[in-house]
């Protein structure tokens, strides 16, 4: 991904790739972004609250983030917006027009999310040792 280095993350590794069925079990924070036009679906970015706070901190030049306050929430939202937007731009280069919807940040204990397809792709991204799970439901 080209976005992460721009935000100050050094090490980006693609982890496990697997297929999920029915539900995404939230790790604490799940950010939902919708896709439409020539590619329809949903992406659920899944991570622990701790990870979210650490990512927000890095995005804000190392400023300490003690809780997931408005600023941290905004940072994480923007991150998913940028990543998804970036992916959409790449699709556009391949001739696929993709439109994305603003991200919805979901925070809570023990909740599940259903993306737009029953079977979905799970891609683990490890960014500077922080795990973000991308659940991609298309179609």
């Amino acid at each position: 991904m080209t976005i992460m280095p721009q935000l100050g993350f050094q090490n980006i590794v693609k982890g496990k790739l697997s297929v999920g069925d029915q539900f995404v079990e939230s790790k604490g924070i799940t950010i939902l972004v919708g896709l439409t036009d020539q590619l329809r679906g949903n992406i659920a970015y899944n991570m622990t609250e701790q990870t979210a706070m650490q990512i927000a901190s890095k995005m804000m030049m190392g400023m300490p983030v003690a809780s997931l306050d408005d600023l941290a929430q905004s940072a994480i939202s923007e991150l998913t917006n940028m990543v998804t937007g970036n992916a959409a731009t790449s699709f556009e280069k391949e001739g696929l027009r993709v439109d994305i919807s603003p991200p919805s940040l979901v925070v809570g204990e023990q909740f599940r999310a259903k993306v737009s397809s029953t079977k979905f792709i799970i891609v683990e991204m490890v960014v500077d040792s922080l795990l973000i799970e991308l659940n991609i439901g298309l179609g």
Partner: protein
Amino acid sequence: MQRVTIGAGDEIMNKIRVLIVDDSPFSQRLIKDALANSKYEVCGCAGTGGDGINQYRTLRPDVVTMDLTLPDMDGLECCREILTINPAIKIVVVSAMKDEAIITRGTAIGVKAFFQKPVKSEDLLSGLHNIIDAQQEGAADKEHFLEYFIAALKKNIVDMTGMDIIAMNHSAGPKSISHGLAVIIGITGSKQGRIMLDVSMSVAKEFANKLLGTDSVSDEDVINSIAEFANIIAGHSISQINNLLRDQEFEIRLTPPSILIGESVAVINPKMASNTITAQMDIGSLYMNVGFVGGK
């Protein structure tokens, strides 16, 4: 919108801040001159797309002018990047090129206007004027949009379940707490936002029963029928809005629904002003939260 207040004697002016992204210092100067002695103030100039994005983040201007031929990236790609940071930013293209393909592509990305170099001061100023003023109207539009969603909700509850609505309440607020089952549908296109239909699991079960005309439903049926109901409400609403604004080349689209299952889960959408409509029925309440990005 951030405004800089400049006092000059008895006059106080709120300037609208502009970031110029153009690799030619000469062009930067021309645009700056075109905006001189106006309500616009150039707060920064960037010579590359990358610098433009960084300066956008730091300065948070109200308007960005973008040249299309930048040394490090395509100008429209830079527009896209900035728009993903803030979908509400007003970006205009100021370039030597101005053909149909660029206008189409740019408009699809979210560029508000296109000016051809060398741009005349009065053209730039009136063009920006239209865009900035449109934003003021935008706020009024949002109130208007909500009415369509309310109408669609009312009509479909009655038509599809046969139930009466005892009361309908309206409150404004950024955060929504899910009651058990929430369906989130994204809205994109000419305006960006999202609609969320939220209900407790017990009310969802009763509601699904009414929708399907049954006495008992499986959890899966409950989830599917509430999701479909949400889709119908959203679909009806945006169709009406699109029809209404058809001559303004306005079109909003829906993304597929995602579903949340869990109680006391907070759903947050930064940069979105949203409204919650509560529809009270005899089986309980259904909550619809509609929000759009842009405007206050």
